[in-house]
């Protein structure tokens, strides 16, 4: 039982790390109806920029806000060069554009900062909490707990932003219908810059946490692949859904790997979340918290 609890808790904490990446997808989809394939590349770009500035001699606490400024500039450039000419185009067109953006951002990051693996020290020890280890025999990393705390603060803030602020409501209106939003005077360009900027901020937070865990390197872009089943489960338009989806994916993949893996040769956590998401899609296509699509025929 103690081992099961350890697997479950470990999975839940890993799931929160997935949620951090999934959140970026949700933000952009929720506010613009675009599935941003480039979110993983943005995570890599943000983390590499922060650690690159830090390596140039800036303190990390100065490098982080500077990186945020870079992410805002990136958001403005994306809006002006990529999105503005494509207003009211089909979703698939916008999706294809974000695939192109992925390769561009990955290349840009490496052209500016190089392709070396970099260490990122956030000052949070990634060691098991001694109290839990001594009393319950369970190894839970204090880094994971801090990451979970950051995720919850982020989600609470974003949920408030979307439901309680004027900008948040405007974002939702834009997501529903670009043209209708424009017709009632919502400035589409500004909204897109805001939402891509916020997604850039989320990418920065996710990149810093994942980078501190494994080193800042190209493989950060792969974390986005784990965010996809999280989105399917949680729903593409729900901020709390990204967290709940992450928790389910994290816990289930660990339990499957530990208890089912040995019977099928192991290494199943790479594909198990996708199978789970596929099964879930059959039962509830809009995800746990996604908006149900009703169309009049």
């Amino acid at each position, binding site marked *: 039982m103690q*081992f099961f609890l*350890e*697997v479950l808790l*470990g*999975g839940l*904490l*890993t799931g929160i*790390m997935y949620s951090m990446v999934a959140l970026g997808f949700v933000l952009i989809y929720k506010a613009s109806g675009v599935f941003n394939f480039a979110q993983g590349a943005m995570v890599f770009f943000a983390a590499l920029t922060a650690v690159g500035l830090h390596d140039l001699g800036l303190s990390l606490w100065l490098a982080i806000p500077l990186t945020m400024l870079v992410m805002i500039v990136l958001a403005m450039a994306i809006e002006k060069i990529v999105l503005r000419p494509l207003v009211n185009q089909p979703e698939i067109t916008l999706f294809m554009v974000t695939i192109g953006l992925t390769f561009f951002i990955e*290349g840009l990051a*490496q*052209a*500016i900062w*190089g*392709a*070396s*693996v*970099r*260490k*990122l*020290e956030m000052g949070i020890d*990634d*060691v*098991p909490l001694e109290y839990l*280890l001594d009393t319950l025999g369970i*190894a839970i*990393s204090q*880094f*994971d707990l801090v990451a979970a705390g950051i995720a919850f603060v982020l989600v609470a803030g974003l949920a408030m932003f979307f439901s309680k602020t004027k900008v948040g409501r405007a974002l939702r209106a834009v997501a529903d219908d670009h043209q209708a939003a424009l017709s009632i005077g919502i400035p589409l360009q500004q909204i897109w810059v805001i939402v891509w900027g916020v997604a850039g901020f989320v990418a920065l937070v996710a990149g810093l946490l*994942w980078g501190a*865990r*494994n*080193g*800042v*390197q*190209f*493989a*950060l*872009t*792969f*974390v986005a692949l*784990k965010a996809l089943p999280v989105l399917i489960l949680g729903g593409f338009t729900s901020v709390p859904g990204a967290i709940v989806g992450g928790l389910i994916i994290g816990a289930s*993949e*660990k339990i499957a*790997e*530990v208890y089912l*893996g040995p019977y099928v*040769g*192991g*290494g*199943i*956590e*790479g*594909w198990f979340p996708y199978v789970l998401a596929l099964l879930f899609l059959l039962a509830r296509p809009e995800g746990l918290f996604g908006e149900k699509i009703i169309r009049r025929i």
Partner: protein
Amino acid sequence: MKVALKTLLTVAVLTAGSAALAEDQFIPLPSYRVGPYAAGGSGFFGGAVDYMSLVNANGGINGVKLIWEECETEYNASRGVECYERLKSKNGGASMVEPLSTGIAYGILDRVAQDKIPMTTLGYGRSDAADGRVFPYVFPLITSYWDQAAGMIKYLGEKEGGLAKLKGKKIVHLYHDSAFGKEPFPVFEAYAKELGFELIKLAVPHPGNEQQSQWLQIRQAKPDYVILWGWGVMNPTALKTAQRNGYPTSKILGVWWSGSEEDVIPAGDAAKGYSSMTFNTPGNYPLLDEIKKKVYGAGKGNMEDKSRIGSTYHMRGVTAGILWVEAIRKAQEKFGKGKVMTGEQVRWGFENLNVDEAKLKALGALGMLPPVKTTCLDHEGSGAVKVQQWDGSKWKSITPNWVVGDRAMIRKMVEEGAAKYATEKKITPRDCSKEG
């Protein structure tokens, strides 16, 4: 931006250089300097280019200058095959090829034999390709994965006070879930049966940036040792997750693709005391000083970050360069000094390499790599490895002598594997007694 500018300039210089002289010896470099494995690719190919630049600075190989052209593969097998096809006929034809990728090596395995271009696979690829009768154009030089795995078991046995002391022990093989990770299975299984230790195999799905479930299983199994067979992000993640789960780093022994600075520095303190295999003894050598003086001093160095000169991957690239150049030199001894060698002739050079201690001393690289002596039967030429340990700031060798596992057992496996391949591909193995 500096990197992009430098790449553009390098391409321009190389293109100009390769067009200028048709009597140069051409070596295509299907390299990878961007993407997920750029750290390994930039260090290795940077080291090889630095060594070739040094050879040119010293007058070439009996007057024959080396030229090379890079093609970015991003470690992608299909792109690697495309690069090989694009470069193989350039500048009078390729003398040899080294893709530094198991996937690309498999992709061009049959092509190199058809095109008569020797391929080196330094420390990776098919272990049974060491049998030159079946694989005349493939050279897994120095040490294959199988010999390395045998070396690992020998080292762990010695650590315990003798191989027999491994009886009843538990060893986890934590591997990248790919052909690379599964390559040593037959060796570990054979040793487990022979010596009586329990072998637990745990797969890590690609790319390996999340390993909590594997390390929880390790925590539960309480193994005596963990053999880490990783690549790229899997390595620092393994070390960090081991720390997170309270498993001592000193009990982890990595494959040589888990033993570079890029694998341990991102892991910080979690990597302190961790050991890995290597076929280079870490340290400084007169050869590296010569590269710094003559190549970097002349502004022709290939490494953007000069602190990486002499690092694990850079030294591995320099090692590759030494063996390539010595194979061409050997070929010239037979087919004509000062002449440009064909791929077929260079293949002969690789098959008759004899880089002994005297040669290494003359090159300023004594101890940097083990002596290498190849034959028609043995395209590996050594089988020796060392163990190095990370002290928090640099790698240090912890085995004073080269470690060699049970070569007789490995040779038997190599011949069985090669014979099976020959049957599948309908290849008639060469008769080595007839080779000159």
